[in-house]
């Protein structure tokens, strides 16, 4: 037990009820150091699960239950739903980055053919808000023209008015008839310009913004000067430690650089959008969301409705990556239009709206300085970072510099810079890829300068046992031994290899519940509002139930993505699997106990002596048996039902009731070719070693790791949003000029999936979404430095930067 664990256990956070039992659960890395640990758990917890090798379904590659629907086009996404009498909504957006709205006239627009409803947007969400009443009042004076009551425009694309019409085209055409009189105000788009004392203010006073279920947002109460908010000196995992001055004094050498990372657009294939159907004072929402339940709560709050009058449905969802939480401006508009028109209204972003007003990973500038002894021991780390999420907060760079390595002296400060750009938001592992890009290159540079092998040095300065194993296994799969000294490859095309590592916390959402039903024809259904955003949780839930009840995953019907079912977690921060699967296993276990109770008289056996296997209930010693189908016929009612919620982590939490002990560690290796004449980087191979607790469905896990790596590559080499400083307009608001990784640039990706046991829940599984993207860009940057002997400190690593680096490095 670590210190923190003892504290947590001591505080009595272990369990709610006094009644506990002690169970022995596997702990450690399978094949390396597997052992058993005792945990005190509530009496109603299921018995411990053995390691995957002893299981029938869990840990086995399992085809997606909804694969058939997806490959035949039968899967219905929000974008596909058509309700009878449904109208189409469209939003008029501001062409100005900062302006007061003098007047809005909807009258002509309302007369256009097919128009059924129109309204002026009086509330904009997704941005930061003024902190205190006083500044809010000053802002209000400037913000609201008393005759229009319309908020001030703070970014190009800010919603101004919305229209619903009988067809999408009619709605789009009617927008042209809305007359808006703007009074343009001075604005600032560039981060450095916004930091100047005389820069136009984006907000009138200090700002605040809470995060979403996917992250983002900023700690409350920080100072703000003009557009610069901060410093933020401590985060979730702590803040400064030791004495950096003394640390640097001890150092034999110092690595100090400025690292730049650019904006990344989520670019999900299905844009943001929802259908609002407001009738009889109840609201049904079909939404492309990462959190059905959190969206329901958001809407209930915004519209002052009881939660049970709002139903959110997300059967299939075409990608989110952190951007799809909450009602959004489009959602609020659709709901109001539906209320006004008394008809369902569908409002989906078009691609331009999606690429300009739907969030992004904020850009960052990091000044990172590390001091080390000649043997590579770190003596001090300081990090000062700035970032802009436009009109939003939350441009931090995570805690990689702070926590990846042993270093007694650490100090950091982060500043959010507000600019007149659309609001950024959480994007897959908010902050961490940025932070890793800096610290992992700094460590690599340290190795180069000290003539140390990057793996050996990390073995020495990284305390994480999992990463040590990942480095070891990853290096074998990758054949790390072929690595040559940086810059030693000659010729026009140079080969390089590099690696980097990362981590993500193990978050748990305790608000995770499900219902499990056995129907009297022997069918089994799992019900939860948890949504499958493409990760495959639908299939994993079936696996969990199948394992417990001795059935096949295909025997289980999984009904999810609907808030009429018990509340499941929102899918952000890699929480889904680790939060909902223990609840589902608990439910399955209790359903099994009920089944055994019923069966015991039929089989004249004690319930404890029964097992379920191959669709049958039988005596352990192979005596009598009975099929589940037959037993189910005897149910007194149509169904037997069990409700269960997530139990607190075994052994308590590291923090609150959401941060679990243990981290999701990752190590990635990259092999690249750099064309020194054209400046192009070609990635040949990635080896990705990952851990996610007990792997439940290796097939889907591999897919998610591939996905994280590819988004990391895309960010490292290609993606960049360009905003015209003079107008605030995004000049590449589409996917032909916003370059994403494509089929021709996909390298060979090899995955080393660790089987790790933490002994923390009834399934002991966690997610993989975030960790998969964290170290990728840094690994590529290190491989590029190894190839050409010069470092590229700015993303994306486009040919011009490669050529400039070569020129500077004088190695052409």
């Amino acid at each position, binding site marked *: 037990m670590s210190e923190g664990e003892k504290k947590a256990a001591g505080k009595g956070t272990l369990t709610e009820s006094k009644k506990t039992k002690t169970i022995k659960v596997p702990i450690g890395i399978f094949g390396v150091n597997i052992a058993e640990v005792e945990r005190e758990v509530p009496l109603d917890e299921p018995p411990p699960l053995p390691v995957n090798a002893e299981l029938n379904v869990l840990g086995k590659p399992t*085809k997606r239950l909804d694969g058939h629907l*997806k*490959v*035949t*086009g*039968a899967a219905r996404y929000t974008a*596909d739903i058509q309700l009878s009498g449904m109208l189409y909504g469209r939003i008029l957006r501001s062409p100005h980055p900062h302006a007061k709205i003098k007047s809005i006239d909807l009258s002509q627009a309302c007369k256009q053919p097919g128009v059924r409803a129109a309204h002026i947007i009086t509330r904009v969400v997704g941005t930061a808000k003024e902190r205190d009443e006083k500044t809010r009042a000053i802002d209000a004076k400037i913000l609201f023209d008393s005759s229009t009551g319309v908020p001030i425009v703070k970014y190009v694309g800010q919603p101004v008015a919305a229209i619903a019409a009988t067809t999408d085209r009619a709605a789009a055409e009617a927008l042209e008839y809305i007359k808006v009189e703007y009074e343009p105000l001075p604005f600032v788009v560039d981060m450095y310009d916004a930091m100047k004392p005389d820069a136009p203010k984006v907000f009138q006073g200090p700002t605040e913004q809470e995060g979403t279920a996917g992250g983002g947002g900023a700690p409350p109460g920080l100072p703000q000067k003009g557009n610069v908010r901060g410093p933020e000196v401590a985060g979730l995992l702590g803040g400064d430690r030791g004495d950096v001055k003394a640390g640097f004094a001890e150092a034999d050498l110092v690595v100090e650089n400025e690292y730049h990372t650019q904006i990344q657009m989520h670019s999900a294939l*299905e844009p943001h959008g929802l259908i609002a159907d407001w009738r009889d004072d109840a609201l049904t929402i079909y939404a492309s969301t990462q959190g059905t339940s959190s969206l329901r709560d958001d809407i209930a709050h915004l519209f002052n409705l009881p939660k049970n009058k709002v139903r959110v449905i997300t059967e299939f969802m075409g990608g989110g990556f952190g951007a799809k939480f909450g009602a959004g401006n489009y959602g609020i508009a659709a709901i109001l239009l539906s209320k006004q028109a008394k008809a369902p209204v569908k409002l989906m972003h078009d691609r331009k709206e999606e690429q300009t007003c739907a969030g992004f990973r904020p850009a960052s500038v990091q000044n990172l300085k590390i001091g080390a002894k000649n043997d590579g021991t770190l003596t001090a780390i300081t990090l000062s970072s700035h970032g802009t999420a436009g009109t939003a907060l939350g441009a931090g760079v995570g805690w990689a510099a702070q926590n990846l390595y042993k270093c007694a002296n650490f100090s950091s400060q982060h500043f959010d810079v507000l600019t007149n750009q659309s609001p950024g938001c959480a994007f897959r592992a908010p902050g961490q890829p940025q932070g890793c890009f800096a610290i992992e290159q700094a460590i690599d540079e340290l190795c180069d300068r000290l003539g140390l092998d990057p793996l050996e040095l990390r073995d020495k300065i990284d305390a994480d046992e999992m990463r040590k194993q990942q480095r070891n296994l990853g290096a074998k799969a990758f054949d790390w031994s072929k690595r040559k000294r940086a810059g030693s490859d000659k010729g026009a095309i140079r080969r390089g290899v590099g690696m980097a590592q990362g981590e993500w916390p193990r978050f748990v959402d305790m608000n995770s519940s499900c219902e499990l039903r056995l129907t009297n024809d022997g069918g089994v259904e799992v019900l939860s509002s948890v949504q499958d955003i493409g990760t495959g949780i639908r299939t994993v839930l079936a696996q969990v139930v199948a394992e417990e009840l001795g059935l096949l995953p295909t025997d289980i019907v999984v009904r999810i993505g609907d808030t009429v079912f018990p509340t499941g977690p929102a899918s952000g921060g890699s929480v889904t699997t680790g939060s909902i699967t223990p609840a589902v296993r608990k439910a399955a276990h209790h359903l099994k106990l009920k089944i055994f109770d019923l069966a015991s008289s039929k089989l004249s056996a004690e319930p404890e002596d029964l097992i379920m296997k191959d669709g049958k209930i039988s005596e352990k010693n192979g005596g009598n048996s009975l099929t589940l189908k037959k037993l189910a016929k005897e149910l007194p009612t149509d169904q037997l039902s069990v409700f269960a919620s997530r139990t607190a982590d075994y052994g308590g939490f590291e923090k609150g009731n959401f941060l679990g002990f243990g981290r999701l560690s990752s190590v990635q290796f990259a092999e690249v070719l750099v064309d020194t004449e054209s400046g192009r980087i070609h990635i040949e191979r990635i080896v990705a070693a990952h851990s996610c607790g007990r792997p439940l469905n290796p097939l889907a896990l591999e897919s998610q790791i591939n*996905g994280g790596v590819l988004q990391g590559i895309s960010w490292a080499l290609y993606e960049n949003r360009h905003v015209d400083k003079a107008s605030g307009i995004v000049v590449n608001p589409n996917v032909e000029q916003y370059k994403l990784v494509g089929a021709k640039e996909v390298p060979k990706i090899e995955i080393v999936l660790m089987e790790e046991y933490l002994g923390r829940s009834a399934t002991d599984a966690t997610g993989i979404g975030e960790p998969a993207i964290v170290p990728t860009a840094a690994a590529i940057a290190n491989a590029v430095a190894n190839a050409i002997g010069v470092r590229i400190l700015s993303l994306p690593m486009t040919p011009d930067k490669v050529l400039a680096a070569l020129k500077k490095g004088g190695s052409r």
Partner: protein
Amino acid sequence: MAGKDDEYERKQSRDISRRRFLKGAGLTALSMANLSEAQAAKEASAAIRGPGATAVTLRVNNAVHNLQVEPCETLAETLRTQLGMTGTKVSCDRGTCSACTVWLDGATMCACMTLTVDVQDRAVTTIEGLAQDGKLHPVQEAFIEKDATMCGFCTPGMVMSCAALLARNSSPTLDDVREATCGNFCRCGTYPKVFAATLAAAGKGVK
């Protein structure tokens, strides 16, 4: 007066298509049976279509549909809103992402960039028409087997591109698959498995 010239050219090509359409209709008993004579006469006399809705006959997955469409309506819109075939996805709506890939006479085409009035008598195949007699196309089976779908929004377009590749090349190389899917965006990152699935399907001897 580029505008005028454009208009003239468009009219010319429409006229040519119109003729081809009628010729096709005359030769195909099925199409003829579904095209009332009065309608055919009306169609024949209409030199310029629009600005309002106009009659078209579409052949989608071997079924014939008589529809009224606006001249500016894309095939993707018609399929999705009029025919309820929402397997064809729209993501960029400007020919970049290939989520809307369908086949016109067996060749892949972006349905978001194709006007329905221009489809005329060409055979449209959508993702809904790929499985034959309830049996999945080998590419579809391989996609499930290899987990080549995640959120699935790009999947129909991806499947149509890969199945078309196998129709013209029964033993493609990895590079052939990359080439065939280089217009298909997948933000979830299914590419490695799309490649594996398509090569596996080819191994099964797809015609």
